[in-house]
Structures are given as structure tokens and as C-alpha cells.
């Protein structure tokens, strides 16, 4: 039996070509379905510094909170539940690995998802299902609770059972990242005051690139349809964002990645990334600003722009609130290539342990 070494880990890639002007485009709902976003990377060709409106969009991402060692039963606190019921509160356990530890996610629609190992699940004593990604033995379980449901109102049966589980049977404590809707800070002050917390702004870093090799169809005017394999395009884009050389020189063994042929050299380009717990509204606003930037740029300068949105690798949920897992990698990301005529090319990607993107 010889192992099939050429087979790479399974991944799913959904590609879609449409236009922002098309009434039926699903871009907005597709963006909303990736709940927990860790990083947004922007690549602008023929640009050495971001124009002011784009710069302000990049630097005005909403802040988020990091609460250290938050006991999970606090998420069922009466006042906090009121805030959750109004919608827009999202949170994720921090520094917990999805394939090793217990992970928690609170979605903006009020659904709480706990991804637990076998011992923790058996201790907690709340109804749950085995993970879809268990191999032979059931070693991981998922507990999903809708905090807006009537049975989860304080005093309800489901509520009591979960609170008892989290306080006496399985007193889980984890570092927790939380993002609130605008003006929501006041409502959680009581919760925050009980623990060690800090407020953070997403970190922005930008880099001006020179002599960047880029696939030629993108740079033609108007941009020609990309005939190369989407995997190769995304590989190139990933290499640019990760600052990996695409020269494939014979003296270096680190990278054999190359830009898809035919390619052309760009004199300069701007690469910007924003890291943190990012909200949908900020990402949508950024995409809007880039659309405006493309439409007002003189012809021949900016012929395309790319935005890549990465989901958290260790989030228990990814596309559409479906279960997410980590086998050898937990990628779940979205790559949007925009053009001046308001058309776009969208790629939605996941790793082995994930559902198909929408």
C-alpha cells in the first residue's frame, strides 16, 4: 500500500463572477455569513499610498474587548442576555485551539455554540451532538443553544440546566473576545467591571510594494477574463500578502511559488492588512470605499483591487453558523477581486473540516 502523496488535504473552493450592479448578487449575504473575521487584506495595484477616504475607512474599524478568564456562566447573566437579545453581540474564545481545547462562539443572532472535548461534554450534562468531523471515536461534541429562545429566558428549564452545568459541573473559564454594536459598551459595563478586560482597536499595517509580478489579464484595459486556475491565482495572492517571494530562484528552497503566466510587472502596489475581531459593517464599508476608489480612478491606473477576508481558524462555526473544524489547517476565507466596471470575482474557500460555502 503506497500512500497517495500527491493528494493534498481536501479543500473546497466556490468561485462566483457577478456585478455589484446586478440586483441578484449575493455578495452582501455571503459576507455576512462569515461571522468571525480575523483579518482583512487589501491589495491595490499602481498605488503607493491609500487615498484619504480609504485611509479613514481602514483606520476607523470598531474596537473590540478582550476579557481575561471569563467564566462562561457570565454569558447567561440576566443583564447580558438583554443585550444579546437586541442583537449584534458577537464573541469568541481566545487562545483556545479547536482541535485540542473547549471553544466557545457567540453569534450576533444570539446562538451560543460550545465545541467541547468528550470529558467536558459528559461533565456539562447538556444536550448536544457529536461533531460531524469525528474520525473513528466520538471525541468532540457540539452544544448549540439559542439564547433568544423562550426556554433560555432566566428561570426557564433550559436556562437553569445550562447555568447549573457551567457553574457547578463544568466551570469553564476562557479568555474571550467580544464585539458589541455601536453604543453597546454601557450595557456590559457591569459584566466587564467584574473581570480583567481591555479594549483594543484592530491593528492596521501597510506596505508599499515595488516591482510586483501580477497576472497580465488583470492589468489589461479592460481587464481580460482570468483563464488561469483559481487555485493558482489565490496562491499568488496569498504569497503577496504573506510576503513570500514568487521568483522561484534556483538558490532558494523556501518557496517554489510563481505568479501565473502570462504576467506583467507592476511598478508599485499597496498592501494593507487589518487584524482583530472585525465587524461586518466595517468590512462592508471598506468594500464600498474601494468600489468608489475604482470608479473614480483615472483609466489605466487602478484596473482592479483585491480584498481577502480571513475567518478565525479556531472558531467553532464558520460559513452560515455551520460547524467548523481543524484537520491540518482551519482556513475559511473569502477573496473578492473588484474591477472598475463594478463587476467582481469572488472566491469562497474552506479546509477539510467544513461545510460548503454559500
Amino acid at each position, binding site marked *: *500500500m503506497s500512500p497517495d502523496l500527491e493528494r493534498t*488535504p481536501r479543500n473546497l473552493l466556490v468561485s462566483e463572477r457577478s456585478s455589484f450592479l446586478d440586483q441578484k448578487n449575493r455578495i452582501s449575504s455571503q459576507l455576512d455569513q462569515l461571522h468571525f473575521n480575523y483579518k482583512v487584506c487589501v491589495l491595490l495595484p499602481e498605488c503607493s499610498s491609500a487615498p484619504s477616504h480609504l485611509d479613514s475607512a481602514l483606520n476607523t474599524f470598531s474596537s473590540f474587548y478582550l476579557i481575561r478568564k471569563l467564566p462562561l456562566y457570565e454569558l447567561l447573566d440576566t443583564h447580558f442576555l438583554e443585550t444579546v437579545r437586541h442583537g449584534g453581540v458577537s464573541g469568541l474564545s481566545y487562545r483556545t485551539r479547536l482541535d485540542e481545547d473547549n471553544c466557545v462562539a457567540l453569534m450576533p443572532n444570539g446562538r451560543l455554540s460550545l465545541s467541547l*472535548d468528550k470529558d467536558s461534554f459528559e461533565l456539562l450534562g447538556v444536550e448536544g451532538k457529536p461533531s460531524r468531523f469525528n*474520525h*473513528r471515536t466520538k471525541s468532540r461534541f457540539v452544544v448549540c443553544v439559542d439564547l433568544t429562545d423562550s426556554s433560555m429566558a432566566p428561570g426557564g428549564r433550559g436556562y437553569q440546566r445550562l447555568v447549573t452545568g457551567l457553574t457547578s459541573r463544568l466551570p469553564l473559564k476562557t479568555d474571550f473576545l467580544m464585539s458589541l454594536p455601536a453604543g453597546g459598551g454601557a450595557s456590559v459595563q457591569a459584566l466587564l467591571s467584574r473581570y480583567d478586560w481591555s479594549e483594543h482597536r484592530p491593528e492596521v499595517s501597510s506596505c508599499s510594494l515595488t516591482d510586483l509580478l501580477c497576472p497580465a489579464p488583470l492589468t489589461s484595459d479592460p481587464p481580460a477574463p482570468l483563464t488561469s486556475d483559481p487555485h493558482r491565482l489565490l496562491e499568488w495572492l496569498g504569497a503577496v500578502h504573506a510576503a513570500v517571494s514568487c521568483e522561484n530562484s534556483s538558490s532558494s528552497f523556501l518557496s517554489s511559488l510563481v505568479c501565473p503566466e502570462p504576467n506583467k510587472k507592476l511598478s508599485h502596489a499597496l498592501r494593507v492588512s487589518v487584524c482583530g475581531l472585525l465587524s461586518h459593517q466595517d468590512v462592508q464599508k471598506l468594500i464600498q470605499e474601494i468600489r468608489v476608489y475604482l470608479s473614480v480612478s483615472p483609466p489605466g491606473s487602478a484596473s482592479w483591487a483585491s480584498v481577502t477576508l480571513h475567518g478565525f481558524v479556531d472558531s467553532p462555526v464558520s460559513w452560515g453558523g455551520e460547524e467548523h473544524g481543524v484537520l491540518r489547517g482551519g482556513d475559511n476565507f473569502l477573496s473578492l477581486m473588484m474591477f472598475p466596471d463594478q463587476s467582481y470575482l469572488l472566491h469562497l474557500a474552506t479546509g477539510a473540516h467544513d461545510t460548503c460555502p454559500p
Partner: protein
Amino acid sequence: MSVFMDLNVNYTADKSQLQSLIETAAHLGFSTVAINYVFEPTEIPAPTAISELMDPLPIVQGRSRPIRVLNRLTIVMSDASHFRPTAVEYRRFDLLAVQPTTEKLFHAACMIYDVDIICISVTEKLPFFFKRAPVNGAIERGLVFEVSYSAAIRDSTRRRYTIANAVCLMETCKGKVRPLPVPPLDLRGPYDITNLGLLFGLSDGEAKEAVSSTCRSVVLHAETRKTASGIIYTVKSCSDSPPADCKSRLHPVSQSSGWLMVNE
């Protein structure tokens, strides 16, 4: 999946080297390591207490808990008398492993010996073939087989032997295996070992289990071996008879203290 474990960190008398090994393992993402004392059967040493070795233990990278360190004993056996089940020295170790060098010893280790791990040396041509019966017997008892990957990293000739022997073992035991590294430079991260496992014929899921769930079951097996000694269960012979008529049966499980009582 459970946390990543590396159950073979070779013991060295050099305390600072051992500390740096444990730090490297924590940095690579292992949540549990076992310091392996490999000895010829004549003199079994006492393991160093973990608190003396390193205090505080380093935090595992990406998590907020310190690494857990266990002690393990590996006995290289060339004769049946080398393994003494009632030896007091064995109790000081958390995990017990044997490395059989003949077919008869391999058979005995799989079917009879009260150990947790059977080490298979894969760097040279083995003097025996793996038979399905003892391998299945070992798996049913909760034992696991251990394969070293460090030679595969270093040397191309030994890599061929490693892969050939490991594939042969995998075919027989259908994946109930865990890989182990040996010296310090050969420690690799858990995802790298998962990739190596693919070379040995394991599937994606099996290779990952080899570094996580299988190791967890070995550690639990060791804990049970050390704590449970036997089961007594009582059977009522007839409904009205006094307790004196109740039969009881004794089932020895392993050698330590404590008995488990079960009433039927």
C-alpha cells in the same frame, strides 16, 4: 480530538538540556510530554521528580496552561526474565513500555505483559514479521505500538527502512500506532508528525489521532493499570439465602493496590 502529546522525550542527565527539550516541546504546541528513561533491565533508576526538574513548567504555545510532564520507563528486552511484573521500581513511572527484540518476546508483550506501549525499532531489518493475531490481541487489551520517526528525518537509507517497516506494521495493525521522536534536534511539531504519518500509510484522521487521541488513551490506560488491581463481583446463588451463600469471584487485573467491587 484531544490535546497533542509527545510521549518520548529522551532522558539526559544534563538538567539544562532536558529543560530546553521541554521548553521546545511546549513551544511546538505539545500539551503533555513524557520523559523516557530507557534502560537495560538490570538497574532501573528512580525518576527525577518533575517539580525538581523544572518549576514553573512552561506554558504551551497558543494555550494558557502549562505543559504536563510524565515519567516513562522503556525496557529493552532480549530475554523473558527482563520484564518483572511485580517490580516495585516500575510503580514510580507513569508509563511503561517494552521494546521486544525477538518474535517470542513480541508475542508475549502483546498478549501477556502488563504494559502500555510496545516499541518497534524500525531503523533496521526486523528479525520477525508482524503477525495479525498478537497485534490484534495487543490492540484489544488497549496497548499501542510506537514507531520512531527521527531516523526518517536524518538519513535517507534509514528513511527507507523506517517507511518500509512502518507500512508493514500499519497494514497489520490498521493504524493503532503512535509516532515518537528521539533526540532533541528531532522534535517536530504535531502537524509535521501528522504529515509524516501519511508517509507511513496512515490516513489524515489516523495520523492526527496518532499524536492526540491515541496518546490520550495510552495515558488513561496507564492510569488504570496503576490504580485498578482487580474486580470482585458477587453473585446471589438463590433469592432467600443468607449473605454467606453468596459467591464471590476474584479477577486479578494488574499488580497495584486497590480492588473494585461490583455487585450483581
